[in-house]
């Protein structure tokens, strides 16, 4: 898969990143538990989750939502190496059966330490219009020569 080059010059404040939609299942949470090594039972054991005061049952790993937000950014970038900073904080719960839409917006562009940097706000929202995660990413892009 060769991706199109993305140039600093062509990115404008206010630009939206192509959105990414995910439909997590309990199966995927088990898969992510195994792949990440995070076996906390609130992510796959309904009764454990309820006993842990999560009355609606299991929730998506925050870091899985972060993984989708990272994919949102790297899908947009020519190379994941362009990603310099990435941070998310978790808000509402994402659950199996939800439709999670990841979006991003360019909020600033500037030159620093010889790099051409672009800051993006990113968010993952469920179908109940709740923000499951919000965050930011900083990417370094080449200039058109």
């Amino acid at each position: 898969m060769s991706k199109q080059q993305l140039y600093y010059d062509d990115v404008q404040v206010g630009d939206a990143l192509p959105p990414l939609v995910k439909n997590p299942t309990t199966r995927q949470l088990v898969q992510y538990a195994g792949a990440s090594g995070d076996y906390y039972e609130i992510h796959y054991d309904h009764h454990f989750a309820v006993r842990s005061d999560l009355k609606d049952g299991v929730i998506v790993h925050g870091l899985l939502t972060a993984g989708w937000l990272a994919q949102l950014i790297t899908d947009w970038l020519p190379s994941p190496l362009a990603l310099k900073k990435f941070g998310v904080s978790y808000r509402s719960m994402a659950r199996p059966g939800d439709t999670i839409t990841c979006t991003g917006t360019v909020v600033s562009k500037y030159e620093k330490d010889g790099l051409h940097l672009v800051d993006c706000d990113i968010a993952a929202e469920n179908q109940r219009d709740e923000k499951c995660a919000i965050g930011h990413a900083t990417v370094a892009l080449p200039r058109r020569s």
Partner: protein
Amino acid sequence: MVDFDRSVLGVESAPIHYDVEKGAIRKFVEAIGDPDPIYRDEKAAQGAGFQTIVAPPTFLCTFRAQELPDLKIVFGGRVRLNGGNEYEYYKPVYAGDIVTVTAQYANVAERTGRTGKMVFVFTDLTFTNQHGEVVAKGRNTGIMRE
């Protein structure tokens, strides 16, 4: 203010080393549902300008630090949640690398939110490769809730 053992702040964990396995990277991106071949296929990764298969940005979370000394936080809450993760990237992590991770508690703070009192625990992480290069730094925010 929440009571805890301040002498534990800034104490670095013993380093722990991880072999970065291409199968582990593949399983991780399969679990996320990210189809990018640079995480699976050596030729595709090289075609995209990498030495070999690279790890995706959040793969760093699989490099768990050695346990830190007990903060002895005095708090009744029993729900613990992941509040956030932040990373700064300096170098790629490649399949075949050996990554060493160390951690330290940076701070503990009490805040009152929608669900009552919460305690935030901030942990700083440093990831270094087998060449002694710091590949990334991270900060995890853990939340204890009533």
